[in-house]
């Protein structure tokens, strides 16, 4: 176990879960390095919570094994696993006060004097003065902190967080994200965080696994997932993507030459998943903020070497930091473009003819055999998934 650094915190091998004929989680392999902040991101019903529960031991996997720090714990009941969970609805004990809730795990392991540890933990989550309150006398944010403290005090090898911020309002949520991140950095325990909120996952985690339909679609650092999604689901679920269907004209060099509705486009071959063959279709993806808009009459000022597409603005909405445009183009309807509000051009208004242009290196290529709108119509409901 000493050979590889960093050591593996959690390793799932071929783990799956079936309920009758329904497969909640398809066999999956996953290893989470010790000390990392890992996020399982997906829509409701994608199997992320089931995966988490299998790590906690609250659900028995149909196949596969769970290893914690190199030890197979698949057969162990939850109370024998060095893992603690922050539950979605917190599941605080209503008959115990904050202090006793936090002390619960220590007492179960037979510790005689828990005072010092509980007080330190109350300090860490800033709840010192509420120690003798009952959970129902606390606000949502305070309850959430008790739930985190109750789990963390046991110094688990892995802390599992099941949509821990789901019940909080947006502002408190952003605040708690920073707080959880701070705590994780402070204690250095492996965190596995289940969420349906892609911004939350990207803001907090070192590594994000995007789950869809009981499978992991893609796994990587947030920036890598965002800059180079490998499936249309990831492209659409993680932020917004414009996907343009194009035909491959030339695949010989480092640059692919493509054509979409008589418009010539290019894409670096290495930013394309799979191999592109001449005559076949592929999807070019480009993020809305990477596109620049220029009024059609100034088309001559667009630098050489950029992909250009013509279109007409159908909608624009001002959001303060940026203005978001919807543009109908011959290559695709409803392209989204976000322009930062540095110098606003009054000509960029609905009805205006424009040129959209971007650095070809910012695009990404996807297999055209997938559903182009995958990930745009998912249920983000907060029910158990």
């Amino acid at each position, binding site marked *: 176990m000493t050979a590889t650094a960093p050591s593996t915190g959690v390793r799932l091998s071929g783990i799956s879960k079936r309920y009758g004929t329904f497969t909640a989680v398809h066999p999956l392999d996953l290893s989470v390095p010790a000390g990392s902040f890992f996020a399982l991101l997906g829509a409701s019903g994608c199997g992320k919570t089931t995966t988490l529960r299998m790590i906690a031991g609250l659900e028995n996997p149909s196949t596969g094994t769970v290893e914690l720090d190199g030890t197979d714990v698949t057969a162990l009941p939850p*109370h024998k696993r060095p893992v603690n*969970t922050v539950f979605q609805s917190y*599941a605080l*004990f209503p008959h115990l006060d904050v202090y006793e809730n936090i002390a619960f795990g220590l007492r*179960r392991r037979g510790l005689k004097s828990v005072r010092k540890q509980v007080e330190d933990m109350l300090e860490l989550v800033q709840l010192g003065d509420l120690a003798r309150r009952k959970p129902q006398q606390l606000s949502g944010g305070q309850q959430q902190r008790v739930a985190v403290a109750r789990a963390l005090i046991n110094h688990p090898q892995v802390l599992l967080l099941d949509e821990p911020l789901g019940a909080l309002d947006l502002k408190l949520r952003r605040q708690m994200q920073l707080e959880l991140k701070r705590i994780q950095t402070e204690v250095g325990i492996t965190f596995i965080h289940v969420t349906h909120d892609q911004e939350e996952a990207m803001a907090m985690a070192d590594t994000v696994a995007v789950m869809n339909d009981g499978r992991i679609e893609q796994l990587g650092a947030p920036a890598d997932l965002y800059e180079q999604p490998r499936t249309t689901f990831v492209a659409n679920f993680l932020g917004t993507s414009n996907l343009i269907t194009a035909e491959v004209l030339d695949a010989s060099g480092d640059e692919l030459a493509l054509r979409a509705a008589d418009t010539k486009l290019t894409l670096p071959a290495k930013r394309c998943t799979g191999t592109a063959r001449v005559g076949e279709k592929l999807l070019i993806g480009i993020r809305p903020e990477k596109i620049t808009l220029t009024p059609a009459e100034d088309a001559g000022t667009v630098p050489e070497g950029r992909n250009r597409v013509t279109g007409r603005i159908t909608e624009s909405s001002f959001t303060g930091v940026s203005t978001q445009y919807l543009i109908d183009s011959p290559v695709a309807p409803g392209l989204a473009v976000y322009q930062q509000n540095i110098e606003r051009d009054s000509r960029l208004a609905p009805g205006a003819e424009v040129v959209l242009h971007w650095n070809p290196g910012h695009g990404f290529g996807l297999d055209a055999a997938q559903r182009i709108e995958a990930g745009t119509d998912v249920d983000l409901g907060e029910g158990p998934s």
Partner: protein
Amino acid sequence: MTTLTEQLPAPAPAAGSARPVRRRRLVPYWLLLPGILWLLVFFAAPLVYQASTSVQTGSLEDGFRVTWHFATYWDALNQYYPQFLRSVGYAAIATVLCLGLGYPLAYLIAFRAGRWRHLLMILVIAPFFTSFLIRTLAWKTILSDGGPVVRTMDRLHILGLTDALGVTEGHRLLATPLAVVCGLTYNFLPFMILPLYTSLERIDGRLHEAASDLYARPLTIFRKVTLPLSMPGVVAGTLLTFIPAAGDYINAELLGSPDQKMIGNVIQSQFLRVLDYPTAAALSFILMAAILAMVTVYIRRSGTEELV
């Protein structure tokens, strides 16, 4: 009442006159009226009437007159304290037996029964479809001398054992303390199970998961989470069993002998056979006061107000 009226939305000033406002303020009182009337007519009035009866003297021929003869209480207690003690004892044993039988059953129905849950609950309530009296009479037949239960128990030498323990006598079940206590347990078991089930069923299953996640073994989960959270049900169930069992006379009448007489039997015979109304009324009040005192101490000690 003031808080109730204050919570009502402020009436629209456009209503014009003050009358609708006043009418609305009175609504809570109007809603309370039927209940208050009911209590006055069927609870307070008989209570006052019984209280006055208990301090009367006289005889059926000459008529009873209020003479503030409080000695009736002392005499009644002096004469019938064995029956009082027996009532409390039988009721307490029956309550403990009900809890012992009812808790596992309620637990099973609430957490383990799955889709059988509703059917099992119906089975628990099913005895209520026939009268209390008829069911107890049926037990009289079942436990009769020479009946199958007595014969089987005799053959297995159980009756010899219970005879030795003093809870049965002469190799029979009827007319023994065992029969009376079993009858009480049987009759009041549903009153124990229903509140237990209700409070167990309300426990969020995720609390069990959380406890398990925090290193609690199954038995510890029960001791530290399930049991404390079901205490309101335990308290409600024991009260609903103990109070009527302590005042019951049907079981002692049908399954017992004069040696198993409970205070309910004494009150009943004083009222209906001896026709000594003051003594009967005084006994009723003593029973009521004793139960009230015991219940108050019990609720205080179990500290359930914190749980609900």
